[in-house]
């Protein structure tokens, strides 16, 4: 049996379940919409202003996440081959991490991780 | 692993000193540079012992792929055999001592990181040179040491003279390099490989019948390579850069311009001895050039006043000996002299450096004298160095120089002239070296009051290495004791047998070189030795009597009696002037012409014209540039499709 078959099954089941839950509300509950009810909820106070432009901080976090995520994947691969590569592998990864750590230090020094 | 560390440490030292730790104190850069070298030396020693324990068979250490084009392959391979192993020890060992010394010598400098960085880089390049398994890796090292030499000669670049000396060394070396490169090209053309081990196998394997074309080519290849060796090892007529190179700091002179770099030519010829053996004509030329250089430089050294200049010409002369040794086919003798010379010449240079430091950077021997009193240790080690170089029986120079002269004499009738020149040079050597010793350490002190007051022995950092070198200079000679002398517990010609696997005479020419292994009557050998010892003794005594108390009556009267000869010698045979008026000036004029007329008017005109034409066309067509990303993309796609179409059909 293909080991990915269960993945497919769970996927369909999950989507189905989510869909049912989504759809259930549609059919089970009453539906009496009016203008005020479907306004975005801001604690009952009249809505103020446009949706703001978001801080670039979130974006910076995301980009750092990507790059460190890649690093993590490299590390997983390395961890798998660790026993085979031994000290050579450690040497390789130390160089790799040293370079990335330089980038990390730059990020910290530049204050890209400060939330104020 | 250990092997790679040998290369790694000097590079690391150079990197740290040159790029990372630029603002540290001189002490730190000294410690860093020195410890890098000592670490390399330890690794080299361990590697060497391992190598010897493994039977001393040559091994090729595979590095990474480097250049590969068609059938041409030049991987970054290294060769570890008895020759390169020895060189490893010389370079890192003597290098370490000189590094230690340099800390004391460069004590007052502010920015020594540059100095130690260059010095470490030099060692790395030199290691590349001796370890490379093919001509190209060797060439990298060859150029690298040239570069470092240039940088270090011009270390005090604020002074125009030093910078010019560096430039001169660089340019003269380039002439040699053209020969070397030509040799590499020819080698590849006729043998389709530039690897030493492959070449050796190809030429020595019994079945290899070299065709006439290849035999002829070998003549030219060796000649071209020898031109390269002339440049690097300062032989006639390309020796002129070496005396000027003394403008650099003294440790540099000791390490680069006496002990290691200048011997690269000898090393290269020894590495390729099987090729040189096949070209007797080249060998003849090599021997002649070596002998002439030995005498020529020795005569100039007779009348120099600058202590470092004397040593510089002495180096040229000694290199001439080594080349002579190679020329007569006695490569092991040449390499042995290289080894001993590295020890005692480093010693002499460093000793001279100590003297110079003590004298507040005065180098003129006319202002010295009587330093024995102030600098007893330096005096002692210098004495040992001088005795070693003049071939005083029992010290290293005696064994090594004698071996070369003996080989020259037994080389046959055609080499007797070379032997004569060499012997004469040996006489001169004793004279000028003893003169140097007398003028510096004996007699009355002739310096001014101020200098005299501050004369004192140097620090242990400086004389420590000198002592080690002195012991080496005295001792290493016993590695190669000739047949006729029997010392209990010591095998004769140890060194020669040690190098046997490296030196290999191709079977085709075995007949021609039979004299290298022939038996000779002991009396003959005793006679040859007696001649040189007698010459040495007489000229030393002459020098002692002339200079025991400064410039005595005899010296002055001799100078005025042979006024013409003295003037010629003082002016170094007018070689520099000759080069200046017949080579440098015409070249400069031609360059001026090429620059002002050909370059500026014609070439620049064409280039600028083309550029302007394109500007015009671009200006005309730029209205098509909408600046739209999509249009750019579209053009790109269409272009790629066109390229693919062309590729497919």
């Amino acid at each position, binding site marked *: 049996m293909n080991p990915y078959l269960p993945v497919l099954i769970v996927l369909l089941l999950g989507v189905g379940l989510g869909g049912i839950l989504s759809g259930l509300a549609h059919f089970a509950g009453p539906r009496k919409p009016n203008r005020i009810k479907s306004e975005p909820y801001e604690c009952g106070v009249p809505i103020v202003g446009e949706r703001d432009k978001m801080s670039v901080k979130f974006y910076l976090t995301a*980009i*750092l*996440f990507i790059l460190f*995520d*890649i*690093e993590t994947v490299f590390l997983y691969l390395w961890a798998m*081959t660790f026993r085979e*590569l031994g000290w050579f592998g450690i040497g390789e990864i130390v160089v*790799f991490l040293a370079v990335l750590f330089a980038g990390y230090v730059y990020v910290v020094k530049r204050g890209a991780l400060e939330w104020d | 692993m250990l092997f790679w560390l040998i290369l790694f440490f000097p590079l690391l030292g150079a990197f740290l000193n040159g790029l990372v730790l630029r603002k540290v104190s001189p002490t730190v850069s000294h410690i860093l540079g020195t410890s890098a070298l000592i670490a390399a030396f330890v690794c080299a020693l361990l590697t060497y012992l391992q190598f010897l324990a493994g039977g001393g068979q040559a091994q090729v250490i595979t590095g990474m792929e480097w250049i590969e084009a068609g059938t041409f392959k030049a991987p970054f391979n290294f060769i570890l055999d008895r020759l390169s192993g020895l060189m490893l020890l010389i370079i890192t060992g003597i290098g370490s001592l000189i590094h230690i010394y340099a800390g004391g010598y460069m004590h007052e400098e502010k920015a020594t990181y540059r100095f130690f960085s260059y010095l470490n880089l030099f060692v790395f390049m030199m290691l590349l040179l001796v370890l490379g398994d093919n001509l190209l890796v060797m060439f990298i090292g060859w150029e690298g040491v040239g570069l470092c030499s240039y940088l270090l000669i011009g270390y005090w670049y604020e002074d125009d003279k030093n910078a010019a000396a560096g430039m001169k060394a660089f340019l003269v070396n380039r002439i040699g390099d053209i020969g070397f490169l030509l040799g590499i090209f020819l080698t590849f053309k006729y043998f389709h490989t530039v690897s030493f081990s492959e070449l050796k196998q190809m030429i020595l394997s019994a079945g290899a019948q070299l065709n006439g074309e290849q035999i002829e080519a070998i003549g030219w290849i060796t000649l071209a390579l020898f031109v390269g060796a002339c440049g690097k090892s300062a032989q006639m007529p390309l020796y002129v850069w070496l005396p000027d190179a003394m403008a650099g700091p003294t440790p540099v002179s000791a390490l680069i311009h006496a002990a290691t770099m200048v011997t690269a030519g000898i090393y290269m010829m020894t590495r390729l001895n099987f090729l040189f053996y096949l070209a007797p004509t080249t060998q003849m030329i090599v021997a002649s050039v070596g002998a002439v250089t030995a005498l020529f430089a020795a005569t100039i050294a007779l009348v120099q006043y600058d202590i470092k200049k004397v040593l510089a010409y002495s180096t040229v002369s000694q290199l001439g000996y080594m080349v002579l040794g190679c020329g007569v086919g006695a490569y092991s003798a040449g390499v042995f002299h290289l080894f001993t010379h590295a020890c005692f010449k480093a010693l002499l240079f460093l000793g001279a450096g100590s003297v110079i430091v003590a004298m507040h950077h005065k180098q003129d021997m006319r202002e010295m004298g009587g330093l024995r009193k102030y600098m007893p240790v330096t005096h002692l080690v210098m004495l040992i160095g001088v005795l070693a170089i003049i071939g005083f029986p029992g010290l290293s120079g005696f064994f090594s120089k004698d071996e070369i002269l003996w080989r020259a004499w037994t080389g046959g009738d055609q080499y007797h002239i070379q032997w004569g020149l060499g012997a004469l040079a040996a006489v001169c050597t004793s004279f000028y070296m003893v003169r140097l010793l007398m003028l510096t350490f004996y007699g009355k002190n002739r310096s001014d009051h101020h200098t005299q007051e501050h004369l004192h022995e140097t620090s242990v950092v400086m004389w420590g290495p000198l002592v080690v070198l002195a012991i080496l200079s005295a001792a290493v000679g016993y590695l190669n004791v000739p047949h006729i002398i029997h010392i209990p517990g010591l095998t004769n010609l140890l060194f020669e047998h040690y190098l046997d696997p490296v030196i290999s005479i191709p079977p085709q020419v075995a007949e021609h070189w039979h004299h290298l292994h022939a038996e000779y009557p002991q009396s003959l050998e005793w006679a040859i030795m007696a001649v040189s010892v007698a010459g040495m003794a007489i000229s030393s005594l002459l020098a002692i009597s002339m200079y025991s108390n400064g410039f005595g009556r005899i010296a002055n009267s001799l100078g005025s009696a042979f006024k013409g000869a003295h003037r010629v010698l003082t002016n170094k045979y007018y070689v520099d002037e000759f080069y200046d008026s017949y080579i440098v000036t015409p070249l400069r004029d031609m360059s001026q012409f090429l620059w002002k007329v050909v370059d500026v008017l014609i070439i620049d005109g064409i280039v600028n014209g083309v550029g302007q034409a394109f500007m015009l066309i671009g200006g005309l067509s730029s209205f098509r540039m909408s600046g*739209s990303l999509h249009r750019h993309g579209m053009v790109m796609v269409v272009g790629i499709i066109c390229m693919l179409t062309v590729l497919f059909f």
Partner: protein
Amino acid sequence: MSQELLFYSFAGLIALCSVMVVTSRNPVISAIFLVGDLFLLAGLYASMEAHFIAAIQILVYAGAIVVLFMFVIMLLNLDPDQRSQVQIAAPEVGVLALTVIAFAVVGGMLVFGQPTGVSGEMTAEAINSAGGNTFTVGMVLYTKYLWPFELASMLIMLAIIASIVIAKKDRPKSATEGDKRRLAHG
């Protein structure tokens, strides 16, 4: 049989998602379809026994890169009219060119048949007996591709620095000493 069914259904969905990515008016929808595309591609990789690639396809591509796209879309919070229409710059040339590519590829396959090559020893069985896909890929990466691997770290570092330099605007330090002094002196 089942493999073909799998392939065709996946391929069809991938094609559909690809078209939707390019044609959706709303970037968020495009991104969602891109995620779908990546997910399905991971399925195809898995069916080709490239387990590791399949996993990181989702982990890195879907889980990180497209998230970044999402963030930027939200960050810019484009007005509906700026979620631009599909606009075609120079339809004739482009469509022609792309048709040529399509015909070239498909035609090439029809003419030359299935491409073949020297078969290496890393067949599915060999990989399984050598310790699994992840392990063997790791071994290849950390031995044969040692230098590219180290260079990759360099690339990532540069990307980190570059993106921060480009995107981060240095705001003036809030109320520096100088500012305070200026304020104090009116």
